């Protein structure tokens, strides 16, 4: 593997860029492994990387049915932040943000983490109070948060609608300056490269179709490329968590839904941070190429179809127009959808499953991109030690039975409305 540096870039340029080696090995399955991770998204690849790096477990395979990063990793709107409020979430997401800050250096791969800041807008006195409360909780946990006024925002993000006719007047908002965006594909590639370099097999084009059992215990997987044995099997399949759990005889507190995202034609820089509307579910940022990247609500009915319907496009664009009037002049050039593992309280599940040999990592809803590094970090710990890391000890499956849901929004078990 070539170490990437200014020097290697220079050297390769002189050689006509013909000397680069593959970033990771495209492996074929071995008969058995210590650990198999199902799913080559960011979470699965990060888990493999930290299994090798933090725990010295390198006889590991990541098994991906398509190509790595082709799932939600490559479909999300790349917002990274840690403005969570509930004990159990707060420190987990903050750890994740800290890992983002050092990721490019750690992986020797530019993941283009851009701490451009994120604002959650408030449109009523009650929302300003809620923002202040959230900010205070964050600061008490050592996380940066700043309450901004309408006047501050007018200076900082001038293109929002501050007029008298604005449908939802902007009163202020909660700002996190370390929040921002990162390059989604690079995250998958960077972790794949780091894991592969430490001996992990990354196997693409191989679908897990079932499990191998021995006296009630899972001892491997059945795949489209044959049986593969493993001492431990961890799933990191995002929108297929319910589906893969069912194959192990488990039902989960998860429903699968589609989420869409939208991109406009490229324009000159107009928004240099991430803006979340407080009136309806909608957010917007601008990519380095210049397109406005937007997202909002789920389509709203159970679905495993990786494509969205038109009403949400209309709803999203109405919200965009209400917040940033200039978008009405732009063309939408692409929209797409990903399949979301919506948990019943909006928080993830990461633990040993009730079936010996199987580990669960799912329920990330539409917020799992920012969690990628901490998810890999904690899942690797959980698998290696058969016990949770301190940061994921509240992400249990039995919290629902015990009445300890982590319901950040207080929505209750209606995941299509989260």
């Amino acid at each position, binding site marked *: 593997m070539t170490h990437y540096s200014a020097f290697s870039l220079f050297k390769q340029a002189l050689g006509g860029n013909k000397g680069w080696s593959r970033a990771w090995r495209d492996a074929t399955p071995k008969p058995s492994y210590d650990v198999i991770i199902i799913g080559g998204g960011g979470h699965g690849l990060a888990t493999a990387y930290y299994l090798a790096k933090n725990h010295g477990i390198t006889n590991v395979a990541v098994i991906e049915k398509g190509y790595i990063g082709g799932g939600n990793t490559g479909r999300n709107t790349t917002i990274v932040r840690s403005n969570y409020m509930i004990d159990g979430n707060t420190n987990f997401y903050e750890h994740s943000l800290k890992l983002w800050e050092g990721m490019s250096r750690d992986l020797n791969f530019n993941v283009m983490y851009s701490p451009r800041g994120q604002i959650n807008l408030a449109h009523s006195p009650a929302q300003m109070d809620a923002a202040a409360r959230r900010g205070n909780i964050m600061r008490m946990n050592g996380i940066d948060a700043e309450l901004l006024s309408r006047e501050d925002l007018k200076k900082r993000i001038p293109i929002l609608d501050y007029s008298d006719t604005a449908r939802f007047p902007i009163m202020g908002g909660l700002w996190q300056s370390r929040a921002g965006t990162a390059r989604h594909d690079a995250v998958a590639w960077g972790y794949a490269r780091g894991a592969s370099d430490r001996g992990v097999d990354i196997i693409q084009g191989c679908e897990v179709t079932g499990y191998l059992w021995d006296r009630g215990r899972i001892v491997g997987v059945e795949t489209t490329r044959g049986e593969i044995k493993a001492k431990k099997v961890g799933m990191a399949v995002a929108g297929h968590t319910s589906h893969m759990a069912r194959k192990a005889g488990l039902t989960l507190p998860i*429903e*699968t839904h589609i989420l869409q995202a939208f991109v406009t034609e490229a324009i000159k820089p107009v928004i240099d941070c991430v803006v979340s509307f407080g009136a309806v579910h909608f957010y917007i940022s601008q990519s380095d190429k210049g397109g406005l990247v937007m997202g909002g609500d789920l389509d709203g009915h159970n*679905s495993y179809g990786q494509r969205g319907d038109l009403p949400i496009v209309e709803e999203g664009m109405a919200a965009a127009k209400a917040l940033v009037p200039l978008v009405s002049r732009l063309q939408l050039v692409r929209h797409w959808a990903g399949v979301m593992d919506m948990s*019943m309280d909006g928080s993830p599940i990461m633990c040993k499953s009730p079936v010996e040999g199987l580990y669960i990592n799912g329920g990330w809803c539409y917020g799992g991109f920012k969690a990628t590094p901490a998810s890999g970090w904690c899942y690797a710990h959980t698998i290696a030690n058969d016990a949770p890391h301190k940061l994921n000890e509240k992400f249990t499956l039995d919290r629902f*039975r015990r009445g300890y849901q982590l319901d950040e929004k207080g929505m209750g078990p209606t995941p299509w409305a989260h």
Partner: protein
Amino acid sequence: MLRIACPYCGERDYIEFLYAGDAAREMPALSDTDIDRWTDFVFFRDDPKGEHAEYWQHQHGCRQWLKVIRDTVTHRVISVTPAIEAGLQADEDKVEVA
């Protein structure tokens, strides 16, 4: 566009309807104090990849509750039945009088 054929009003765009989720679960009797049965009912879902039974209300039409069988991969609607005929009961039917 996902279209649902309301048995009372005819085929309409799905945005006329309110989605109310999984219709395969069975609510325990209100007098049931078993925590596992309630946990199952409130939080756990089969969430099938394929045919899914679900409730929709024709909110902007006849306001009737419907039980729809729909494929969660192709989004094809397989059947629509009035929820009353499909056996949806009002809660009070299930209260056991001591």
